[in-house]
């Protein structure tokens, strides 16, 4: 499926994003701390946005101010209250003068992890934030691939560029799946979103490569607010990869992204995420708060949206990639592995809204808890009165490693049509002593044995990952669970 060439190409495109995306043109800028209409205007002005987008942001900001509940309290997570006036909402990347000069100055533990994950050397430099001017000699490669995508009419650029170059598309679809005031964090994002990716696949086009971005959190104390929008026109196909298997150097706490997907008639979007942001230390100090709203809409008949996620990082994950099955025969899928260790908290799952006849959805969720962590699957399957013959199958399995962690399952099933068939199954168990003993007896170390068993437990999800991610993600599971078994 993917050759080393195509992997390089993906990285090249990615790298291109970074070089010409939001990072460079924001250099040396930092808005003062706090959030008010001036900051919203400042962000919009820095990005030379048109009036309509500024209005959109300002409206979102007003709605956010009016959200009586403030931040949502229903998830099984706990954290000290966030002071939204104590964050930077716009900032340039951290000055290169502060960054390590070479890998020799990077935390050896981080390097050891890269080693285990098999990350290429030069990529490690980028991930560790080494101040290297041209890490990849990729400008020409990136341009080549951009040209190739361009020939097919595919648009793949930063959101800022899309606002400038393709305002009609952005205007038509931005906020059409996740409205500006959808929820507390999505609303905040709508007001202050920094940048993100924009993808448009024209009618009948099958995107020839897997599109990918590595999101990076740049400067200390900067909330990150990406906004991604992917539109697959009728009969098209795209596979999009987000995230990175390697831990990244950053000191930010809050990350509130919004991802919107739109699939028209017979189109298919496959969205894969590997999330491995800093989870905090063994005592739960630090770590990213990952509060993300991801939602796709199947707007045309037989459209398909598939979410695959491997969540191992972040101190707190609050994320429910969802699918609105609005058109006849459309399909939603959710495949998830969520691993928590030490004091991590994850409350993640999906929502499948069956709104049209003959819609189908599949949910496979694997939660692995270790250490003193809490891992919750929270999901909703709703079958509307019009969704005749809707079909859902849900399987949620929890694996508990150690007696101080928690694995929870909270599904909501709401059925309003008699011809629907909805099935939910959930189990919770531990790694059996027999399995461990079998592996140990054949010479595997305990950690390798756990890694093997956990990978087996997650196999159904891992198989759904694109090649680029699958190999690294497998190693990642082992690394994330290090130290969890005596």
């Amino acid at each position, binding site marked *: 499926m993917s050759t080393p060439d195509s992997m390089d190409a993906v990285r090249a495109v990615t790298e291109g994003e970074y070089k010409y995306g939001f990072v460079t043109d924001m250099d040396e800028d930092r808005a003062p701390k706090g959030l008010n209409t001036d900051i919203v205007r400042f962000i919009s002005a820095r990005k030379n946005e048109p009036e309509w987008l500024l209005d959109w942001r300002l409206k979102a900001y007003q709605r956010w101010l009016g959200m009586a509940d403030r931040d949502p309290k*229903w998830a099984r997570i706990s954290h000290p209250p966030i002071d939204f006036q104590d964050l930077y909402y716009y900032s340039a990347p951290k000055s290169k003068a502060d960054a390590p000069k070479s890998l020799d100055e990077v935390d050896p533990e981080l390097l050891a992890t890269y080693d285990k994950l098999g990350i290429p050397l030069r990529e490690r430099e980028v991930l560790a934030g080494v101040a290297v001017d041209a890490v990849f000699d990729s400008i020409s490669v990136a341009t080549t691939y951009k040209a190739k995508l361009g020939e097919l009419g595919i648009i793949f650029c930063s959101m800022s560029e899309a606002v400038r170059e393709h305002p009609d598309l952005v205007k038509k679809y931005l906020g059409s799946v996740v409205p500006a005031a959808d929820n507390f964090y999505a609303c905040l994002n709508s007001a202050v979103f920094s940048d993100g990716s924009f993808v448009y696949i024209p009618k009948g086009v099958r995107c020839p490569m897997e599109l990918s971005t590595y999101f990076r959190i740049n400067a200390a104390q900067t909330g990150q607010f990406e906004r991604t929008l992917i539109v697959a026109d009728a009969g098209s196909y795209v596979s999009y990869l987000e995230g990175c298997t390697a831990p990244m150097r950053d000191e930010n706490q809050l990350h509130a992204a919004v991802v919107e997907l739109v699939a028209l008639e017979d189109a298919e979007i496959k969205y894969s995420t590997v999330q491995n942001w800093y989870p905090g230390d063994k005592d739960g100090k630090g770590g990213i708060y990952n509060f993300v709203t991801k939602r796709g809409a199947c707007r045309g008949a037989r459209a398909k949206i598939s979410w695959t996620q491997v969540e191992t990082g972040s101190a707190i994950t609050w994320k429910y990639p969802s699918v609105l099955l609005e058109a006849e025969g459309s399909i939603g899928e959710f495949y998830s592995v969520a691993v928590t260790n030490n004091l991590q908290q994850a409350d993640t799952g999906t929502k499948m809204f069956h709104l049209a006849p003959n819609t189908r959805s599949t949910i496979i969720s694997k939660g692995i808890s270790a250490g003193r962590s809490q891992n919750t699957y929270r999901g909703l399957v709703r*079958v509307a*009165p019009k969704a005749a013959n809707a079909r859902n199958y849900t399987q949620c399995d*929890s694996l*508990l*490693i*150690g*007696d*101080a*962690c*928690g*694995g*929870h*399952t*909270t*599904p*909501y*099933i*709401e*059925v*309003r*049509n*008699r*011809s*629907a*068939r*909805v*099935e*939910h*199954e*959930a*189990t*919770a*168990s*531990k790694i059996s002593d027999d399995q461990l003993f079998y592996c140990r007896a054949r010479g595997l170390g305990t950690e390798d044995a756990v890694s093997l068993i956990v990978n087996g437990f997650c196999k159904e999800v891992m198989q759904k990952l694109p090649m680029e991610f699958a190999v690294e993600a497998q190693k990642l599971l082992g690394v994330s669970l290090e130290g969890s078994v005596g």
Partner: protein
Amino acid sequence: MMTTPATDNPTARAHAEAFAGLVSSLPGDATARQDALTRFKAAGLPTRRVEEWKFTGLDALSRKVFAPAAPAITGSPSRAQIEAIAGVPGAIHAVFINGSFDASLSDALPAGVALLSGASVTPTATGEGRGQSLIALNAAFMRDGVVIDVADGARIEQPLALVFLAGGDGAAVHTRNVVRLGSGAALQVVEIHASLNAAGATFSNAVTEAVIGAGARLTHARIAAEGKSALHHSHAAVSIGEGGEYVSFALSVGGELTRQESDVRFAAPGGTARLYGAYLGRGRQHMDHTTRVRHDHPGCATEELFKGALDGEAHGVFQGLIHVAPHAIKTDARQRNVNLLLSDRAVADAKPELEILADDVKCSHGATVGDLDADEIFYLRARGLSPDAARRLLLTGYVEDLIGRLDDAAIAAAIKARTDAWLGEEQP
């Protein structure tokens, strides 16, 4: 925000206003009742914004005023009617009319069974958690019920049928039972909640507390079979001792709105809880079964099976939480909820929930929603059954599979009589 302030709800207000005049006539400690009323007022009535009430609204308590009922009303049924309503063969009957014991309709109570009104039970805050203010309301206004003490090792063979009849438009009836089983004791109790006068709207709010001793076994059935415009809330707060067993069957066939809650806690290792339930709804009935089982000790087992059959515009709700505390290892908990939607406008909501804080456990839950299996109907039709007969046969099997799990024949018979009646009324 989360609840309706008690003073904003006409039913809550009617209760608060009636309290001073009533309290002297109610048994037990008036101060404890006052405290309970204060707790209720502070909490207010639960609304759908309270997670535990997400699928069930108590708007009916706002639309109409329900005030604490007069203790006695006219038009009592005959003894034969009582036996027919109860439907428990060979049972000892205790009959309560609008929350007050009626000796003329009841059997002589055996040793160990006392009336709450004579036993001066002090209302406790048992089971009052988030969204449980109706239990506090019950503590403030409960008039009667039974207090059963079964001595160590005593095994009562005869089932006890507690018949609660409510009547009178706008009557609110609060009853409470306390069941205490000594070590190795055994008892079967059936609560039957029915209407005296099907035309009036009543609100019954029944709480049963049960403490099951080591190695003891309690079978507890609740049958909610009130008239079409009745509101029914019942709550069972159960504690299971070492190696004890609690077998519960909650049946909902009547009422406009019915919510039956079970709150089961293992107080020692090695206990077993078997919770069964059926909700058969049609018309615009709303039926909610909410269970919470807390495994606080190692080596306990839970088996839960709840089945719904929903016709017309009926709305069925199942919420089941299984909580496994840290160190409650060797927990074996299985929960299943099955829903049949028999009409285009029937609705099913399910929220099976696992909350697990120990690793060496076996827990699972499953929930399904769908119509009767088309293949099974085809099979029967191919053998000459009419569509209606095929449906009825499948439904009968669906319900009997559940009733068959009860070991106690008399209780199974009482439940089967009710489900058969429901199936007999079934309109194709």
